[in-house]
């Protein structure tokens, strides 16, 4: 594979291949930023990959009180799924089990769109007849009595059909320590980009996967070409100086947002340099035949 070298780091001449997804956004508030964050973290738990979790979800950013509908501290959360019906199911279950249950929480639409998903309209039945609908202008809310007062929830939230999932950066380094340092640095840079999430633990996946397996019924398996312990097996894509590989997967509400996040991540890794960080950057794709969104690394260089 041909490569460029920027600031002593090799950059593969390749691209990340991403897919169209359905997405929505929520604003979760609570009495304090701590509890708003707690509700958001709980709701976005076990949501690293649509392969096994049904959706990919994460925190976009924290919100100041003057940015939320009820003037309390909040968190903006994004959810992505492969179909509208799955997104609706995940939204309803996760808000119902993780936000409704969290002390002092409220949950509002975080995205305005022509098409909508049920939010409070699905959860209101928990009120067992005591729920109250309140329409203020063009916005409708449900007030559901709960044991610490009321859970207030928007009736609906917007649905995006132009979201993108699967933007990625593969970070390769000489040791686990330097590779992790470079990847964390990139994740921190991506956190400043709006409308994107990095759904894996801490934004980082160490078990990147390829499509399919030698075993029947297994839809994804280890990305053996990037496993350092399999160097020399004949299918490895790693050089002799690479001892550790990590991946950042990026989902965004728009293709532009994904590109901006990848650009921020790549820049952060390159600026850190090879001594303290990565030796090489790559990206995952399927030959360009499956996903309509291609993000070429050479186009994302600073």
């Amino acid at each position: 594979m041909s490569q460029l070298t920027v600031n002593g780091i090799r950059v593969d001449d390749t691209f990340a291949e991403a897919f169209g997804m359905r997405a929505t956004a929520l604003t979760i508030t609570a009495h304090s930023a701590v509890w708003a964050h707690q509700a958001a973290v709980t709701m976005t738990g076990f949501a690293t990959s649509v392969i096994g979790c049904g959706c990919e979800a994460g925190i976009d950013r924290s919100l100041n009180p003057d940015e939320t509908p009820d003037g309390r501290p909040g968190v903006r959360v994004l959810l992505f799924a492969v179909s509208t019906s799955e997104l609706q199911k995940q939204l309803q279950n996760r808000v119902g089990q993780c936000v409704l249950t969290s002390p002092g929480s409220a949950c509002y639409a975080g995205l305005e769109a022509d098409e909508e998903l049920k939010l409070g309209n699905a959860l209101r039945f928990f009120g067992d007849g005591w729920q109250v609908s309140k329409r203020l202008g063009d916005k409708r809310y449900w007030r559901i009595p709960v044991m610490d007062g009321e859970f207030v929830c928007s009736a609906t939230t917007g649905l995006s059909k132009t979201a993108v999932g699967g933007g990625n950066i593969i970070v390769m380094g000489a040791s686990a320590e330097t590779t992790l340092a470079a990847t964390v640095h990139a994740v921190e840079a991506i956190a400043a980009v709006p409308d994107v999430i990095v759904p894996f633990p801490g934004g980082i996946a160490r078990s990147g996967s390829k499509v399919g397996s030698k075993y029947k019924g297994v839809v994804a398996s280890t990305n053996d070409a990037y496993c350092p312990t399999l160097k020399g097996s004949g299918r490895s894509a790693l050089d002799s100086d690479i001892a550790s590989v990590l991946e950042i997967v990026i989902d965004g509400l728009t293709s532009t947002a994904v590109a901006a996040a990848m650009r921020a991540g790549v820049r952060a890794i390159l600026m850190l340099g090879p001594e303290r960080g990565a030796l090489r950057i790559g990206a995952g794709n399927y030959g360009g035949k499956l996903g309509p969104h291609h993000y070429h690394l050479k186009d994302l260089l600073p």
Partner: protein
Amino acid sequence: MSALTFTLREAPLQRVDLAALTPDRLLGLSESKIAASELQTTRVRLCAGDLFKIRMGDAMQIRFEGGHERFDRVGAGMTKGEINIAGDVGIQAGRLMQGGRLTIGGNAGPWSASGMKAGTVAISGHAGERIGGPLAGETVGMRGGVVVVRGDAGARAGDRMRRGLIIVEGKAGIYAGSRMIAGTLVVRGRTGSLPGYLMSRGTIFAMNGSDVVSPTFADSGVHELVAHTLLASYIQPYSSEVAAMLRRPWRRLIGDMAVIGKGEIFCPAPN
């Protein structure tokens, strides 16, 4: 472009129906056609040109220079644009409004905003009884939109209200929010006896208390609710003082238990 202006020549000798003079009905009409609009409510013919001096302008902004308590149905059924009337109006101002903004500089008679569906009605003076309420034989009153009364409101404000928001910055008469189906009625001043009489659902704020509350309302304690902050944010552009008052704990009474009892009256928390 300046507003299409109607200047009152002299007080009308009969009640007049001004429903014909709304932006959507006058848009694109010539001055002669506007002047020929019939306004009479008796057998004596009275046209707009007889009652008003007309100055042509943007029909989406209508201005009445001079009002009268015989001006009935001002802005009735309007769907868009603005009407600004510098004076009093009679009955049913803004009845069945579906959009736009009606601003009344003086007092309004009974049944203002009756059955209103959308838009905004602002009354600088006092409003008569049954603001937002249904006419005889109708089952539902106000169905949407916002009404702001800077002065007092008469009896049965928000009668059979189904949706929308009424803000009364002054006092409200007896039976405020009677038979409410849903929606929100906020009274900043004192509320007359028996607010929420036979209300099934909906929200009433009696911010300065009420003379007599029906025993068919149950006390559910003092609460500081998130829903109040949402309401405050929504009300802020219409009445900043009322909005500020909403952001505090309120005593919640639920009722009317004489019917299904799923309405609520918020009144001051005891000291």
